[in-house]
């Protein structure tokens, strides 16, 4: 099982091979070269109960840090961003019927997209680096 960092007894961050973005998303490289993508436990917890996920379309391309879509929680909305320059290969349609799968298993069954990098993946950060970001935000 993947090792985890746990912050304040509630925010789980999975270590290698999971990688992260500064905007609270995780990615996991797949065997076929695509990357699985979702939002972190911290992001999900902060959003609270989810209402809907707006997806991009398969084939859409994005630059790193560009908004790919929107997650609607009950009282707020949040964009989710491209982890690196990429193309959307698959969307997790099941989330349309139940967005809260993200809460049940945000690093597994709660994946949102599968993307293909078009220009390398240098923009990613490690689990440890991401954990520092979360710690700083909590203190704020």
């Amino acid at each position, binding site marked *: 099982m993947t090792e985890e960092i746990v912050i304040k007894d509630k925010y789980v961050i999975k270590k290698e091979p999971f990688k992260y973005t500064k905007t609270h998303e995780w990615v996991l490289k797949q065997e076929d070269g695509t990357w699985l993508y979702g939002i972190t436990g911290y992001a999900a917890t902060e959003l609270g109960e989810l209402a*809907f996920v707006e997806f991009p379309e398969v084939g859409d391309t994005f630059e790193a840090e560009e908004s790919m879509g929107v997650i609607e929680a009950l009282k707020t909305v949040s964009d989710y961003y491209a982890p690196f320059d990429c193309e959307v290969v698959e969307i997790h349609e099941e989330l*349309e019927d139940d967005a809260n799968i993200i809460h049940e298993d945000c690093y597994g069954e709660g994946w949102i997209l599968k993307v293909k990098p078009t220009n390398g993946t240098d923009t990613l950060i490690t689990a440890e680096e991401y954990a520092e970001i979360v710690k700083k935000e909590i203190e704020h």
Partner: protein
Amino acid sequence: MGVFLSNFSHPYIANSEQDKEEMLTELGLNSIDELYSDIPENIRFKGELKVPHFQSEFEVKEHIEKLLSKNISTREYRSFLGGGVLDVYIPAAQDELLRRTEFYSAYTPYQPETSQGTLHTLFEYQSMICELLAMDTANCTMYDWATGLGEAALMTARIKKKGNKFLYTAATAPNRKEVLKNYVSGAKLELIEIPYDKETGKMDKEKAIELMSEGVVGIYFENPNYFGVVEDEIEEVIKVAKERKIVVVAGVDTSSLGIIEAPGNYGVDIAIGDAQPIGAGPLNFGGPLAGVFAMKFDKKWTRQMPGRIVGITLTPKKGKWAFTNTLQTREQHIKRFRATSNICTNEALMAMSTAFHLALLGPQGIKETGESMYYNAHYLKEELEKIGVKTVFNSEFFNTFLIDLKIPKDKKEEFTKFMLERKIFAGIPFSFDVENYDYLITTSYLLKKKDLDDYVKAIVEWRNE
């Protein structure tokens, strides 16, 4: 008028001098002006406001009634004017309910538990609109039909994402065209007009199908259209739109829906219009109105519907239902620049008024008023034909038709005066060539045979002069 009092007291201001003194003392201040101490000198207004002095309620009443007395109402002269608003009668019971301060002086129900009156009534409004239009869901109103059309166009662009063209019928009311053009001017949406057939006044089907090409996100028609023509051949166009995955938007005359088929029953995705003709309110010189916006339910698409939506929900007490604003995350107060629309205050009380009206009229009332309008319009058309005045389009119509009067533009004013002398508002002038004017006539259910006969008589007299 008013005498300037040094200790100014007014019925709309709650505090007395004593209150002021006590509150200032508790705040440790000498005067209210100290609360304005942070206002820079430069920007304080030091002049004399050119605003009238205060008046007593009686004087205000006299003043406004005197102003209004210079108007002539449709209760005094016979009105053949339509164009999106209709001369309707508001039952006393409806107005009585509208005068309940619990309804009119309440705010948007952001605390639903104490605002079930508003929410429950709005849910009923939404439901009645859905019944009338054969749709699943409706919002709590847009400002009016015209802005509803603008919003619908923007919505089709949001739904389709890819594509930037919106088709609309040339037989759209001119004022609605103007608002549509304005609303899409900020988006990168190109408007393309679909011509109508010169004989029938109906949408040119071939042209419509040809225009429904790559990059088109939506198509809009009106039924009946601006000229009153019933678009009974539109289903072919709708079929192609659906094949090409183009959103079908229809603007309907809500008052016709007792007689004419509901848009949800012939393939329309988004139906818009105004509830004023079905009793939201009287003419009111064009405002307030009540923009209707309804659609079939779709998990994704309904989230793109602008405006407020009321849904039903649970409370802690088992079996006790309640109503609440739902899908608020799409609205401006949460989604801000990503909102489906900037609309906040809408026409909620007019929606509630519509619910009162439809509850009073019932299906029988809607049918009867529709029939009256139909009979009036068709009788008038025939009587005009007898004196040689034809309708421009030879198609089926409901309560509106365009007569081939061809008044030259330099005689238009004279004609208007002529008809006014006979206590008639003759209709909306419409010109194909800017040289000669035809008239668009709408017959409300308030007109009687004598009024229609008088209209014909007047035209005969005009022609003889």
